[in-house]
Every structure is written in structure tokens, then in C-alpha cells.
């Protein structure tokens, strides 16, 4: 039985539909990321689970109980906000103990629970400070502590790392991963940062304009995107796309007439498409192989217009008959701007997308 479940959930603000008949099941103990560009409805979805947004239509279940109309505090969900939402006039201790103190817990119980949480999050030294006297990372830990102290069934994170600098983000990411490993509580994490989603989550839900585009493990999304949106959204640098024409079919593979006159064979994922149809070909930068220009096995010849050397890899921006393609090569590549190179597609790692943008 799923731990958190949304059934046919719709959210409307007046006439504007933000989420449209969405269904989602999250397994107990999983770390699920809701990933999508801004405005895709991912935060709204999280807030509906928390009870901070009303569900216009549909149902929400937590641990088998319907909570669609249950007030936030009684849902057993704790939330960490993007801007922390710490009570500025209270000390760290009072912030963490707030829910206990509201519920009338004794001073001893409060101190004991705050002590446990503070040790776990290394906040012991900071308990008597106010939020204004803390750094961004410390504030984030207090916000997590405030959620932890409630011993919730589900943790909800709303872009919790987006206000931190890059170094701290990596560090907090590790801490969150460790936290999930030790607590094994269900966590739902909203982010627009695919790296965060890929590294933290065991399952990613990609959202696009209020509907689920694809659900899967990080590698499933990366290697087998269900549509062009997911293919383009996941991966950095982004996947290359160009148009090609179907020439024929050979079992699971389609032969294609590529721009520039050459042909290629690409293995399909089981979809069918009529001959002579125009399709989008998607190929990741690391799946384009470099070779000498004019080689028999290359699919495009092109001229290098930009070279980005990143140390562990080199990114080449190559102008080809199919438009500009990004190619990822080794770190010590000896290629200069203006050189002509040949590019070949990896037939098993390239993707075909139909006019409906779904994978073929």
C-alpha cells in the first residue's frame, strides 16, 4: 500500500487550472523528488499534501487514511520551507520546541526532545541563539529540526536548498541523504534542480504544466526518457535534438535520412511510426563520438565553433548540417576552434520522438 497517495487531484485558482487530475503514489520510506521547471505545479502539489492548499477535486491519503479535509497539523506531515520560516523572535530551542509547547508538553519532555534533535543535527551550541544570528546552513538545520521533533510520518521539503550557496548546497545534500538513511521516513522533495533530484531521490516525478510527465528512478529518466520534455529537462548539458526523416524499418531499428545526406540506424523503444514521417532525434552530448571528418562511419561533419575545457571533460559546440550539436569528449582533447570533425551517433543510446513528443 502506498504511504502517500493522491487520487485524481485537481487544483484550480479561479479559472486557472494548476494541476489537472493528477494521481501519484509514494511508497513508504522512499525519497521522492518532484522535479519540474518553475510554475509546473510542484510546490502546489506538495502544499496540498501538507494541507496548506485546499484540494479542489480529488483525494489525498497519508498512511492509508484520507486526509483531504484534515487540518495540516493532524496529517502527520512536517514541512521544511524554502525560506526556512523560522520564528524570528524565538531562540533555536524555542523554535524546535514550538510544536511541543503548543501541544502543552512538559518542560522536561521539551528539553529531552530538543536535546535529541539538536545532537542529531549538531545544533547543541546554537540552542540559545535567534535565527538572525545563524548562517543560512544553520537556519536550514533548525528548520529540519523543527520538522524532526514532531516525529512525522512524512517529511515534505519545498526547495530547501535553493537559498544556500553552491558549496553549502552540496554539503546539505549529503546531510539530507544521511538523514534519510538513518530515519527511513518517507520524504517528498520539491526541486527545480535536476542534480539535487538525481542525487537524493530514489524516485523522481517529473512534472510539466500540472501533469506528470514521467515517474521513475534517476537512471530510468536519464536513459529512457518517456518524452521530449523529460529528455530535454534531465541532463546537463542538455540533450541535442534535430529533425530527421524515417527511411525504413529493420526489426526494432529505424533507418533515418539525416540532415546532410547520410543515413543512420536508431533502435526504437517499441513505438511505431510511418515511413517518410519526420521525427525528432535526441542524443546526449556523451553519446556523440568524435572522429576524423569524412570518415565512413561518421554521421555528420562539422566545424568546431566553441571549446569549453572543464578539466574532466571537454564540451565542443559543433556546427553541423543538423544545427549546432554539443559533444562531450575527454578532458585532454586536442581540438581547437575552427577544426573540422566527424560525429557519429550511438544507435542504442539515441532516442526518437514523434510529433506528439512521445518516445518512439
Amino acid at each position, binding site marked *: 500500500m502506498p504511504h502517500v497517495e493522491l487520487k485524481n487531484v485537481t487544483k484550480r485558482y479561479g479559472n486557472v487550472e494548476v494541476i489537472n487530475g493528477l494521481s501519484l503514489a509514494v511508497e513508504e520510506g522512499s525519497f521522492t523528488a518532484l522535479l519540474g521547471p518553475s510554475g509546473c505545479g510542484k510546490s502546489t502539489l506538495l502544499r496540498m499534501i501538507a494541507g496548506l492548499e485546499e484540494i479542489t477535486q480529488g483525494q489525498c491519503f497519508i498512511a492509508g487514511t484520507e486526509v483531504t479535509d484534515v487540518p495540516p497539523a493532524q496529517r502527520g506531515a512536517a514541512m521544511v520551507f524554502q525560506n526556512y520560516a523560522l520564528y524570528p523572535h524565538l531562540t533555536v530551542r524555542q523554535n524546535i520546541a514550538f*510544536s511541543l509547547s503548543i501541544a502543552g508538553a512538559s518542560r522536561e519532555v521539551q528539553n529531552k526532545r530538543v536535546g535529541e534533535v539538536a545532537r542529531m543535527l549538531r545544533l547543541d551550541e546554537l540552542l540559545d541563539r535567534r535565527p538572525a544570528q545563524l548562517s543560512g546552513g544553520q537556519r536550514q538545520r533548525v528548520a529540519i529540526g523543527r520538522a524532526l521533533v514532531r516525529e512525522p510520518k512524512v517529511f515534505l521539503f519545498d526547495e530547501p536548498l535553493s537559498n544556500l550557496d553552491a558549496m553549502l548546497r552540496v554539503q546539505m545534500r549529503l546531510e539530507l541523504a544521511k538523514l534519510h538513511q538513518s530515519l527511513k521516513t518517507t520524504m517528498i522533495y520539491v526541486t527545480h534542480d535536476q542534480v539535487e533530484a538525481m542525487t537524493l531521490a530514489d524516485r523522481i516525478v517529473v512534472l510539466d504544466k500540472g501533469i506528470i510527465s514521467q515517474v521513475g528512478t534517476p537512471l530510468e529518466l536519464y536513459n529512457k526518457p518517456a518524452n521530449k520534455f523529460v529528455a530535454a529537462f534531465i541532463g546537463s548539458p542538455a540533450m541535442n535534438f534535430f529533425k530527421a526523416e524515417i527511411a525504413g524499418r529493420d526489426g526494432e531499428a529505424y533507418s533515418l535520412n539525416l540532415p546532410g545526406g547520410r543515413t543512420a540506424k536508431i533502435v526504437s523503444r517499441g513505438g511505431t511510426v510511418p515511413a517518410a514521417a519526420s521525427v525528432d532525434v535526441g542524443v546526449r552530448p556523451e553519446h556523440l563520438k568524435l572522429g576524423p571528418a569524412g570518415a565512413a562511419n561518421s554521421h555528420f561533419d562539422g566545424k568546431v565553433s566553441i571549446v569549453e575545457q572543464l578539466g574532466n571533460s571537454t564540451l565542443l559546440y559543433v556546427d553541423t548540417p543538423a544545427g549546432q550539436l554539443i559533444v562531450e569528449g575527454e578532458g585532454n582533447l586536442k581540438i581547437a576552434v575552427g577544426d573540422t570533425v566527424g560525429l557519429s551517433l550511438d544507435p542504442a543510446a539515441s532516442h526518437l520522438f514523434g510529433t506528439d513528443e512521445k518516445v518512439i
Partner: protein
Amino acid sequence: MLKSRRNEMLVAAVLVAPFVFIYGWMFVYPTLQMVQLSFTNAPLIGPGKWIGLDNYKRLFGDRVFGTAVWNTTYFVLLTVIPGTAVALGIALMVSRLNGWFQSLILSAFFLPFVLPITVVYLIWDWLLNLQFGIAQYIIGPIMGKPMNVWRTIPWFMPGVAIITIWWTNGFSILLFLAGLRNIPKELYEAAALDGATRWQVFTRITWPLIWPVTVLCLTIQLILQLKIFDQVYLFSLGGRTAATMVMVQYIFEQAFQKNSGGYAATVAVALFVIVIAFSVFQYQVLRIRGAR
């Protein structure tokens, strides 16, 4: 080094001089003059004879002065804290509204504040008129007969206090609303998730976070209401003014109606001391509350 420091001092002196001059000329000098005047029997215009502490002796035996001090204090008690509390209550309600409806309601509460006191006086004088005032339809059945609020001494100060709160509340409401808008929405959401009831949200989040605005409102109100004059003067016109006298009104009466500038100055010195004492006392109390 020394020379440039001297230059700096010169520039500083030149820049500060206009303020020092105006402050000294318009505030310090008249204040000292007032204190000096309080030891003389001067009329409103022209010099008087030095009479030592006679004015102060007279002040302590002066029945009307005692009444004025009491009425002023009573008025402050009736307006400052109750008015601020009412403003906070209204602001809390208005802040729950949205869009144009909020603006409409807010303007309705703010409207009296833009009226001059004479208009406020006429409005309420009509409303409470013994013969045709519509407020008498409410007062009549409750009291058994129509009442002349402004000629019934126990009703006078509470009446003026209610009208003053109605008149000046818009400003406090505006200050409170600004304070309430500064509280991030997420804090309320976090509190909702933490299980706080509406009352707990108010006592533990809203109220502590708008405490600085409350201090500001109370201070502005205190200073304003200690200087009460125009409302009391207008509503007591033609009545027994000695019974409803307030301090500034007494200064006005002594100086401009009884032509005794020396004694008026003595009353003014007393008011000056009272305002300072009240302000320091309130500041200390609020500081202690705020530091907690």
C-alpha cells in the same frame, strides 16, 4: 594632521550650526523663557515682577488645576491603551480581507482621520443632539430618557474619549496593518503545521512580532492625548468648563482669557514635567516587556 582635523571640526560646526541655531532659538530659548516667566506675575504681553515661588504655591492649592490634571490623566487612560487595542483588533480583521474590498473597508476606517476637529465636533454634536440627534434613539431606550452627553459630567470624558478613538484610530490601524503585512505568510503556515490554534498563533507569533509597532502606536498616542485640548474645548463650549478642564485648556484659559502669562507658564512647566515623566515611565515599561 592637526590642521586637517581643525578643518574638519570647522566644517562640522558650519554644518551643524543651522540646526543648533534654529533649535536654540525656537525651542530652548522659549522653554527657558517659560520657566523664567513662571516665577513672575507677568500678563500675556509685557514683563512682570519676580514673585519667587508664589505661582507654584498657588498651583498646589488650585482646585481647577487638580481637576485638569485628573481629567487629562483620565482621558489618557481612556484613550491610549483602549484606542491601541481597538486599532489592533480592527487591523487584524481588515488584514484578513483581500483586494478592493480590503481597500474599501480600510478607507472607511481611515476616513475620520482626515476630518478637521471642527467637522468631527459638528458631526457628533448633531448625532448626540438632545432634540433631533439620531444617537438619542439608542441612548433614550437604554437610559429611559434622552441625555445631554456634554452636560452630564460623568459622561463627558468617556464621550470625548470614544470620539477621539473614532477620529484618530485610522492612523494606528494603518501602522498595525503595515506591521501585520511584514509578517511572512510562511510563519503562519509553519504554525499551522505545528498545530497552533488561532489564539496561539496570535499570542505566540503575531503579537510578539508586531510588538514594536504597538510600542510606536502607544507612544504616539500618549504624547498626542496628553496634549488634548480642541475636542474638550469644543464640546464643553457653553458648559461648566471648570469641571471638564484639561491641562492645555487651562494654560489657554489662564494665558488668553485671564491674561496671566506668569501663572499659565507655571501650569505649562507642570505639564512639561508630567509629559516627560509619563514618557520615561512608559518607555521603561515597554522596554522591559520588549526585552523579555
